[in-house]
């Protein structure tokens, strides 16, 4: 082989190399900017945010009451509760107390879909409320439940309550409240309602349920004793405290052992839910016996995992995905409390709400075609 032919044999390697580098560059160009599939993440309300603290400060609307002076040297009394919803809360509950930030949920990322899901086919009800001067979509701020009393806060200044509630009985209660009642056809009393300063609407089964709340709002009784929900609990779009009894009763049929353990080990369950984008729930299960709450913690964790495995085995992917977000965590070492975290991703909720709206629209269309 001559020297010239040897040279000819070598240069193609460089051409091949150049072609390969160019091909590689072409193939990989743009891969560095390729967006990854959006990860499904849940926002969990583990603490109060700055905005929530600001929101709570703005709700201190009850005027400061003069407190009786204590003996000299005594520690200063706890601060007066000035948020109407927290002031309306009892000091203890039988089943639970929950506050729902209706306006925040209405303005959340899924708020419009939620409204569509609830009010599709309910145009008449909505119209009747608006005719009575109450727009639930814009006037409602918070909804709270404490045992048998339901409280709604917002702007009720233009609301005609007798028309809205179809009330046939009205009377003044104290300086700040009016009471309304609806008589039933059989002569019994229907739902009772009270309005405090045009800001808080209280609903109950008996007049006593309503007046007790109105009295608390008027500052009657001990204003400084701790309520079942305090300012420190007021974060998330839903927060509250639940007693294990009703939860255990709901679980009794499906998992009697877990229901019994829940009733024995837990004294109360503090709940916080973030609904601003997706739904993230943090529940702090409080107990008194660390050994028992540890058993409950393990039983709950196992039940959740089993449910996830069952959902996977049955091919129910969305349920398995949702259960995959559940986590049972230790709250503090050595304490009898622990945390349970769970969530619903935005995509899952959006799909379910769209389904809800579509189904309601279909039902409405079917009803209208039958009527025609």
């Amino acid at each position, binding site marked *: 082989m001559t020297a010239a032919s040897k040279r000819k044999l070598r240069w193609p390697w460089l051409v091949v190399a150049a072609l*390969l580098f160019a*091909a590689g560059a072409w193939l990989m160009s743009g891969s560095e900017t390729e967006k990854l599939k959006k990860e499904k993440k849940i926002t969990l309300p583990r603490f109060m945010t700055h905005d929530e603290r600001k929101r709570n400060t703005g709700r201190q609307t009850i005027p400061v009451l003069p407190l009786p002076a204590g003996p000299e040297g005594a520690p200063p009394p706890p601060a007066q509760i000035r948020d109407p919803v927290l002031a309306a809360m009892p000091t203890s509950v039988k089943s639970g107390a929950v506050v729902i930030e209706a306006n925040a949920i209405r303005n959340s990322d899924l708020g419009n879909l939620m409204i569509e899901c609830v009010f599709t086919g309910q145009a008449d009800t909505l119209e009747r409320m608006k005719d009575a001067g109450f727009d639930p979509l814009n006037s409602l701020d918070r909804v709270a439940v404490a045992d048998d009393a339901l409280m709604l806060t917002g702007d009720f200044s233009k609301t005609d309550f007798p028309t809205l509630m179809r009330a046939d009985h009205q009377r003044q209660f104290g300086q700040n409240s009016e009471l309304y009642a609806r008589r039933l056809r059989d002569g019994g009393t229907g739902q009772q309602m009270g309005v405090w300063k045009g800001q808080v609407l209280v609903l109950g089964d008996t007049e006593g349920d309503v007046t007790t709340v109105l009295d608390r709002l008027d500052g009657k009784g001990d204003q400084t004793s701790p309520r079942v929900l305090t300012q420190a609990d007021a974060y998330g779009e839903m927060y509250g405290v639940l007693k294990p009894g009703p939860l255990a009763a709901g679980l009794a049929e499906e998992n009697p052992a877990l229901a019994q353990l829940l009733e024995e080990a837990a004294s109360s369950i503090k709940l916080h839910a973030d609904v601003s984008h997706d739904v993230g729930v943090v529940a702090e299960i409080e107990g008194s016996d660390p050994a028992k709450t540890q058993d409950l913690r393990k039983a709950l964790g196992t039940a959740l995992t089993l449910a996830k495995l069952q959902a996977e085995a049955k091919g129910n992917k969305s349920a398995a995905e949702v259960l995959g977000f559940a986590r049972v965590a230790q709250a503090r070492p050595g304490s009898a409390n622990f945390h349970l975290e769970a969530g619903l991703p935005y995509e899952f909720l959006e799909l379910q709400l769209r389904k809800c709206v579509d189904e309601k629209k279909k039902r409405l269309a079917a009803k209208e075609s039958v009527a025609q």
Partner: protein
Amino acid sequence: MRITLHVARDLLREALARNWVLGLLVGITLVLTVLGLFLRLDVVDGAIAGSKLFGAMLFDDIVSTDKAMRPVYMVAAGIGFFGGAMFLAVACSDFAPSLLSPGRIEHLLSLPVSRWQLLLGTYLGVLALSALCTAYGALGITLVFGFKTGFWTTALLGGSLLGVAGFCALYAAMLTSAFFVRSAAASSAVGLLVRVMGILASARAPIEETLEPGLGRTLFHYGVQPFPRLWKLAEQCIRLAGDENFNPGLTARLVAGSLIFSLGMLAIAAWRFEKKDF
């Protein structure tokens, strides 16, 4: 091809006799033994209720086994991709320089072996070694956690293969450099340089945004283009191991890019090798 595989097998045999490689295998075995003997996982009906290493509590959350194992596999894949490749780059840096050492190369060229077969055989031998070490570690971790938790997955093995795809680009550049400068240190430095360029290439777009438009930016734009996107590949390796948000299309492009870069480097090595007189 048979001759190429013979060369690769001889290199593997030589590698296994070296302290560096033996040290790596012993290290992996030691980690697996520690995990196997001293890691205690409380598994209750498919959920991990707590874990202890040397008797000390690692975590106490109750989560389903697959979810609990995800971060473990992701960390293992990340360590394998970056740490393992770095170690192998150092451990294998003198294979090519020693192949080209005076006396040995003349002897090899006197045998009925062509130059490209020697080159390819050496390359494949090192790749086989890296694949063996990675598979040993990945399989070991999968078996240890599989037996302890009852959760079996091939995700880590798949992820570790992506690590090998990343290493093949590194070693191709290291091998090529040996034909220009016969030095193990230079070979390691080239491996490190390709790694850095691979990371820069992965972050090309955000880096470009920080550069003033002009010659520098244009040079950077075209200069990093041929390099494999190693950081992106590492990301996909970790995501595959953790079974989380893995993008197969993007990964296929990244792996193909890495292999094409390796072939390009080997073509330069072949050009240089054919030209060189011994």
